[in-house]
């Protein structure tokens, strides 16, 4: 099947790179102290996620992931970081006495428990692959489904976006004249 020598190896390398980018980006996003590095970690995570989407036979969604998350969401967060206070201050001794370490421990325990439980659910089940796909999920089929089967949900999500934009304008504009 593979005409190109080492094609499987290249494929595995690209897949591993996507997983590595996703995991490293998520870790940078939650662990770094400076907010701007967190945003960069989120962007890296979204690039890796786009690669995973590509491996899941959805190149359209991979492009949308980069366009929306990296292009819009991360840039908007960068704007907010510029307008507001950029960094978390270093943890002082008072914070630590007030239970900061306890909270960190609780967060680690809870997230490790969630990861262990969900992974165990995923790996413990024997997934039976589907025999014959009805639709392959090409871009014309997605567009057709958005305008026929999911037309009401499509309209609802546009309404949600319009209301969100208007609400954001109203909230952020209020108090603009104050010093």
């Amino acid at each position, binding site marked *: 099947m593979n005409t190109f020598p080492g094609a499987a190896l290249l494929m595995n390398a690209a*897949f591993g790179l996507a*997983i590595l980018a*996703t*995991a490293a980006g*998520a870790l940078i*996003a*939650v662990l770094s102290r400076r*907010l701007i590095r*967190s*945003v960069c970690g989120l962007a890296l*995570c*979204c690039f890796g996620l786009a690669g*995973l989407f590509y491996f*899941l*036979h*959805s190149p*359209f969604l991979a492009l*949308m992931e980069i366009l929306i*998350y990296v292009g*819009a*969401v991360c840039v908007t*967060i960068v704007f*907010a970081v510029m*307008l*507001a*206070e950029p960094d*978390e201050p270093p943890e002082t001794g008072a914070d630590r006495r007030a239970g900061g370490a306890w*909270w*960190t421990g*609780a*967060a680690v325990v*809870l*997230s490790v428990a*969630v*990861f262990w439980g*969900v*992974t165990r659910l*995923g*790996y413990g089940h024997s*997934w039976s*692959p*589907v025999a*014959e*796909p*009805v639709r392959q*999920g090409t871009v014309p089929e*997605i567009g057709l*489904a*958005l305008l026929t089967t*999911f037309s009401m*949900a499509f309209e609802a999500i546009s309404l*949600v*976006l319009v209301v*969100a934009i208007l609400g*954001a304008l109203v*909230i*952020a504009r*209020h*108090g603009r004249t*104050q010093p």
Partner: protein
Amino acid sequence: MEPLHQQPEIYLGVAAFLLAAGIFGLIRRRTLVGMLIAGELIFAAAALNFLALNRFMAPDRVVGQVAVLFIMGLAAAEVCIGLSVVIAVYRNYRSIQTKTLSDLSG
């Protein structure tokens, strides 16, 4: 043996990792923007789960992609509202740390 990128368990594991990282960030970050970023990670985990299960288990491969598009729209709306709230909070309190927003605590 199937190649690595055709095993659903790997995608589910990555999605579980993203969910765990997002929960850790939500609990641990001390600024509102940091919590917003952690929330985005949880959205990303949901999207990856939708797409992986749809790719390997569902006969109709359109539904999962449409669901992920809707998740992206909701995440964009959430970021939009969340950041405007952050800016309004910063105007009033001159800080976006969660610790300072304690007017209602006894």
